[in-house]
């Protein structure tokens, strides 16, 4: 064979470098994806026996009140997270981005630290914080309001979603702030200075100069928050001691997937739940792409 030496020597390299990743990716991500699509059309009792049921799982899902309870809970959580967490994160970033801030890196470190705790441990740490009577939150609120706040306020029994929103706020606001801060530091100083010279006040400068500049990152962070919030599971599961809470008040979509798949043992129905969520999130990602393309054309 008259192959050039160079080609012969390089031939194995792509397989060597990309092969191991692709093998694991194919076996443990791609293949389960395909089989979950198949599973979604089967009724399963334990991992061994399967029965084809066509669209029955999806048809059942549409009329399943627990599924809709999970969807409504998860939507409330996502909405609350977006509306509270992102403005807080952006606000903190704006404050830290002011010129000549003393202690900027200290504040940044402190605000970032909760995300290091990790979801399961945040849930475990917050379970006493949300306790009735002795819990940190109720006692503090009671003191701050001069006794007006009911120390028996039932965070984990009745107001589960607000509790989850608060815990997620504590955990993720500083993390999202890092992204906003990085984006703000890339905004050319000349732009805001020019606007200031033209007599724009702080609000006008933010709305007309800074915000358009950081829109790509803001959009990206919003997308990640939506996708992450819709997959909320461990926080709720562990705060509620492995249950979905009284009257399913803490039931989320992924928790429902987990319960049907691993507690009731119907992996097929669980896969149907998973695909409905996946298709919904892909739709959100497509909308985001459309919107961010539109921005570039502006």
């Amino acid at each position: 064979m008259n192959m050039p030496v160079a080609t012969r020597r390089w031939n194995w390299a792509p397989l060597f470098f990309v092969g191991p990743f692709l093998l694991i990716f194919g076996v443990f991500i791609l293949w389960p994806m395909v089989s979950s699509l198949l599973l979604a059309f089967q009724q399963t009792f334990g991992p061994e026996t399967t029965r084809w049921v066509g669209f029955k799982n999806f048809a059942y899902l549409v009329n399943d009140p627990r599924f809709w309870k999970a969807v409504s809970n998860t939507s409330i959580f996502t909405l609350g997270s977006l509306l509270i967490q992102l403005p807080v994160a952006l606000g903190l970033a704006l404050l830290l981005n002011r010129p000549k801030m003393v202690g900027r890196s200290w504040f940044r470190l402190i605000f970032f630290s909760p995300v290091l705790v990790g979801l399961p441990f945040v849930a475990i740490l917050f379970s006493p914080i949300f306790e009735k009577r002795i819990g940190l939150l109720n006692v503090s609120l009671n003191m701050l309001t001069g006794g007006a706040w009911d120390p028996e306020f039932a965070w984990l029994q009745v107001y589960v979603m607000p509790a989850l929103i608060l815990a997620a706020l504590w955990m993720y606001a500083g993390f999202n702030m890092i992204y906003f801060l990085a984006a703000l530091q890339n905004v050319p100083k000349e732009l805001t200075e020019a606007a200031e010279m033209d007599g724009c006040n702080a609000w006008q400068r933010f709305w007309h100069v800074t915000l358009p500049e950081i829109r790509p990152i803001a959009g990206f962070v919003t997308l990640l928050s939506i996708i992450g919030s819709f997959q909320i599971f461990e926080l709720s599961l562990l705060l509620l001691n492995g249950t979905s809470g009284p009257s399913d008040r803490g039931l989320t979509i992924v928790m429902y997937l987990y319960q049907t798949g691993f507690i009731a043992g119907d992996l097929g129905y669980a896969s149907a739940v998973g695909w409905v969520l996946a298709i919904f999130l892909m739709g959100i990602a497509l909308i985001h792409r459309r919107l961010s393309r539109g921005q570039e054309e502006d």
Partner: protein
Amino acid sequence: MKIRRLTQFVVYGVLLVYAAITLIPFAYLLCGALKTKFDFAATLFLPDGDGLFGIGWDRLSGANFKRLFLELGIGRAVWNSIFIASVHAVGATLLCAMAGYGLAKLRFWGRSAVFSLVLSALIIPAPLLLAPGYQLLYQLGLLDTYIGLILPGLAPAFGIFLFRQAMLTGVPSELVEAARLDGAGEIRIFFELALPLVRPMTGAFLLISFLSAWNNFVGPQIILQSPELHPLSVALNNLRGVYGTDYGLIMAGTLVSIAPVMALFLLLQKEFISGLTSGAVKG
């Protein structure tokens, strides 16, 4: 001038209040870990007493930690967590760096197809793979093993994305070509040229991977049945099932679980934050 000073005052005030809100749960955790069950219910932070500042310093003790390690064997779970997270971090970083290098610097048939395939997996929500992944591990006989827990996580799609990006921007193709002309093999080029040039990404990705494995609960909860294999996340939650109301003990366990990660982060925080944001800012 006066307004400027007032604004500055308000800005620092807001930042300090939010910093306090962020730190208070940590203080709560730390105090709680040193208190008995009784004192935990009686006081928020430090117990009352007749010591310095009216605080019962003598009521604080390391008894919870002693119980955790000597009676309840939490040390085993600490080592399990360290082992799982380290193997996961090193393995995932190596595989992603190699694949990222391959996709950025080697020319081969199907390269862009491979990249788009992997990218499309970025929007697949992980929970979707729970059920079929469990079934697959069952069929492979890998349930209740560390291989079954670690192997599926070694090919995260965002890892290949980050490393391909880092290799494209951080490793000049001329350098690679020059090394090839000098007769260096691809493996040597990767380890001695490319990998050192993307060091910040490697450091950040090692940390991110370590963190994600350390904080994984659902994976080990589903895959590992034997208690002696459990990492801290699962072990601590099981402990809660038995000693649910003994918050002092649970807080001590939480502290044991998060302290190693916190220490690691403090040591490497510069690399971590710069690596974390580099992908986002360029995008």
